[in-house]
C-alpha cells in the first residue's frame, strides 16, 4: 500500500518566506545608492511534434515553454545580488507531460560576496555543490576561508526534491558542512558531512560523510579524489580518483578509477528506476577510464575516451566503451564541425551498440544554420529494429542585438517510433544594463 505519487517539492512551505525575505532585503540598501546591474533573459520554446507509434496510432503535441531568468548584481553599490530562474509549460494540444501545465522555480536567492577571501552567503532557493552535497535547497549557505587557508562551509534548509517513488516523498530538512584547507595553486583538501531527515530506503535518514582532494604534484600533473560514505546504510557510496595532466593549451589527459555501490549511492533515491526490481541493490560498479583532448593543429581537436565497466553481479554484464571524435572550430570560433564514433562491447550482446555522429554550423553575419545527424546500431533488435536515425536542422536569425529567433526541424526513426517529426521555434531575448560575461 504505497502512498500516492508525489510531485510536490518538500521545500514548498519554506519558499514563500524566503522569497519575501529575499525581496525585502534589497530595500534595506535602496537608499545607499540607486545602482544595480540588471539582466533579464527570456527563452521561449514552441514545440510541435507528431508521433506515429508502432501500432499506427498518431499523436500530436504542441507544448509551449517559457524559461525566464533575472539577475540584479551590485545592489545598492554593495556586493549583493539577487538571482532568479524558472520555467513554465502550457500545452496547446494533447498533454505532453503530467497534466496540461507544469513549471518550476529553479532558483531564487540573495547572494553576498565578500570582496576578499571568497567569503559568501546565499539565502533562498539555490543549487549547491559542496563536498558531499549536490542539492537544490530552500535555505541558507555560508562559506569563509581564513588567512591560514583553513575554511568552512555550512548550509541548511529544506531540500527541493521531487518524488515519483511510492512510499517516499523526500526529505524534510537537510543540513551539512565542509571543512577544508586550501593552498593556492598547490592543494585543496576537504572533509564534509551531510544529513537529510527523511524516510528513505529502509526507513532511514540520509547521512553522508565525504572527502575531497585536489593536489598539484608537480608541473602540470594533478591528482583528484572524491569519496562518500553513506552512514545510514554503512556502505561506501562512491569513489573517484584521477590523475590529470594539463601541459599548457594543447593537451589535456586524464585517467582514473571510479566505483559506487547501488546500496550506498541509491539509498535516498526518489525515482523507482534506482530501486529493486529495476536494479539489484547489492551490485557494485567499478570503472577504469581514460580521456585525451589534443589540439593537434590550431582549430582542430582530437578527443579520445575509453572506459572499462565491471559489475560485481553478473546480470548486467561488464562492458568496454570507446569514443573517438575530431572537431574543427572556425569562423572566429563561432562555428564548429565534428565527427565522432562510439563503440560499446559487452559480455552480453543486448548491451552492445555503435554510434556515429556528424554535425556542423555556419554563421555568416546574423544568420546561423546547423545540421546534426546521428545513427545508432544495436547488436540485438529492440522492438524489432536494430538501429535508429535522427537528423536535426536548425536556422536562426539575430533580429536585434538582444533578440534571436530560430527554429529546429527534427526527424527521428527509432525502435520506439516508425516516424517522428518535430518542430521547434525558439525566441531568445537577452537584456542587460552592463556588459560582461554570464552564460
Amino acid at each position, binding site marked *: 500500500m504505497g502512498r500516492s505519487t508525489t*510531485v510536490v517539492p518538500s521545500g514548498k512551505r519554506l519558499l514563500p518566506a524566503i522569497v519575501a525575505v529575499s525581496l525585502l532585503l534589497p530595500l534595506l540598501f535602496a537608499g545607499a545608492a540607486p545602482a544595480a*546591474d540588471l539582466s533579464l533573459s527570456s527563452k521561449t*520554446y514552441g514545440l510541435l511534434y507528431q508521433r506515429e507509434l508502432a501500432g499506427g496510432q498518431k499523436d500530436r503535441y504542441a507544448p509551449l515553454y517559457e524559461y525566464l*531568468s533575472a539577475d540584479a*548584481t551590485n545592489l545598492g553599490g554593495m556586493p549583493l545580488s539577487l538571482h532568479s530562474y524558472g520555467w513554465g*509549460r502550457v500545452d496547446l494540444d494533447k498533454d505532453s*507531460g503530467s497534466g496540461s501545465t*507544469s513549471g*518550476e522555480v529553479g*532558483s531564487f536567492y540573495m*547572494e553576498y560576496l565578500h570582496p576578499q*577571501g*571568497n567569503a559568501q552567503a546565499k539565502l533562498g532557493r539555490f543549487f549547491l555543490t*559542496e*563536498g558531499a552535497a549536490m542539492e537544490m535547497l530552500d535555505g541558507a549557505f555560508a562559506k569563509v576561508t*581564513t588567512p591560514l587557508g*583553513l575554511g*568552512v562551509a555550512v548550509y541548511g534548509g529544506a531540500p*527541493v*526534491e*521531487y518524488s*515519483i517513488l511510492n512510499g517516499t516523498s523526500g526529505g524534510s530538512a537537510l543540513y551539512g558542512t565542509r*571543512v*577544508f584547507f586550501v*593552498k593556492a595553486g598547490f592543494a585543496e583538501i576537504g572533509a564534509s558531512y551531510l*544529513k537529510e531527515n527523511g524516510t528513505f530506503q529502509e526507513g532511514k535518514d540520509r*547521512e553522508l560523510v565525504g572527502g575531497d582532494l*585536489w593536489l598539484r604534484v608537480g608541473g602540470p600533473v594533478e591528482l583528484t579524489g572524491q569519496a562518500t560514505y553513506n552512514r545510514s546504510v554503512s556502505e561506501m557510496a*562512491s569513489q*573517484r580518483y*584521477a590523475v*590529470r595532466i*594539463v601541459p599548457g593549451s594543447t593537451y*589535456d589527459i*586524464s585517467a582514473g578509477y571510479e566505483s*559506487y555501490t547501488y546500496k550506498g549511492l*541509491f539509498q*535516498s533515491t526518489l*525515482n523507482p*528506476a534506482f530501486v529493486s526490481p529495476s536494479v539489484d541493490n547489492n551490485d557494485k560498479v567499478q570503472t577504469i577510464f581514460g*580521456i585525451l583532448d589534443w589540439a593537434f593543429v590550431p582549430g582542430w*581537436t582530437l*578527443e579520445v575516451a575509453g572506459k572499462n565497466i565491471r559489475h560485481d553481479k553478473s546480470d548486467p554484464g561488464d562492458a568496454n566503451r570507446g569514443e573517438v571524435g575530431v*572537431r574543427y*572550430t572556425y569562423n572566429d570560433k563561432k562555428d564548429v564541425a565534428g565527427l565522432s564514433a562510439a563503440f560499446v562491447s559487452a559480455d552480453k550482446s543486448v*548491451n552492445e*551498440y555503435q554510434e556515429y555522429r556528424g*554535425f556542423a*554550423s555556419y554563421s555568416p553575419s546574423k544568420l*546561423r544554420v546547423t545540421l546534426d545527424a546521428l545513427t545508432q546500431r*544495436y547488436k540485438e533488435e*529492440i522492438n524489432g529494429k536494430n538501429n*535508429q536515425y*535522427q537528423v536535426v536542422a536548425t536556422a*536562426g536569425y539575430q533580429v536585434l542585438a538582444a533578440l534571436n529567433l530560430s527554429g529546429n526541424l527534427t526527424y527521428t526513426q*527509432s525502435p520506439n517510433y516508425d516516424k*517522428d517529426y518535430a518542430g521547434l521555434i525558439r525566441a531568445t531575448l537577452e537584456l542587460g544594463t552592463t556588459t560582461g*560575461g*554570464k*552564460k
Partner: protein
Amino acid sequence: MTRRMPFPAVFGAVLIALLFGCSAVSQSPSVPPKHPEDLPAGRVNCLECHENVSTGAMKPYANFRHTGVFIKSHGTYARQGQNLCSSCHKPEFCQTCHAGKEELKPNTKMGDRPDRMAPHRGDYLVTHQIDGRLDPGSCYRCHGNKSDMRCKQCHR
C-alpha cells in the same frame, strides 16, 4: 541513535574553532561575481587571457579550459566551490541538466548548438536501457531525485 552524534559534534567543534580562532577572512581578492569582459563564443579557454592561479578556485586557470576532459570531470571541481563557475555561468546553466522537474532534454533546448556536449541525443528512451543497465550511477546524478513521470511508466 546516540552513536551517531560524534560526527555532527566534531564538525560543530571545528566550525566554532575556525570562526572564532581564525576570525579574519583571507586577504586574497575574491573572484568577481560577474566576468568583467564579454565572453567569446564557443568553448572557453581561460588561458587566452589568464596565466596564473584563479583567486576564486585557488587552482591554475589551465584546469578550467573547457576541454572534453574538463567537461567530463567538472563535478570534481564544482564540489570544491562554485564561485569561479558562477562568475561566468548563470544558475540556469547548471540547472539545464541538474534540475528537478525539467522536461526538455538539453539537446532539444540547445538544438542550435550541436557543438555543446549535451546528453541524450537521438531517441534516448531507447539507448538509456543499455546505458542505464551498464552504468546507472551516471544517470543517478541528474535523475535520482527527478520527477519525470515518464520514468514511472516502466519503472514501477
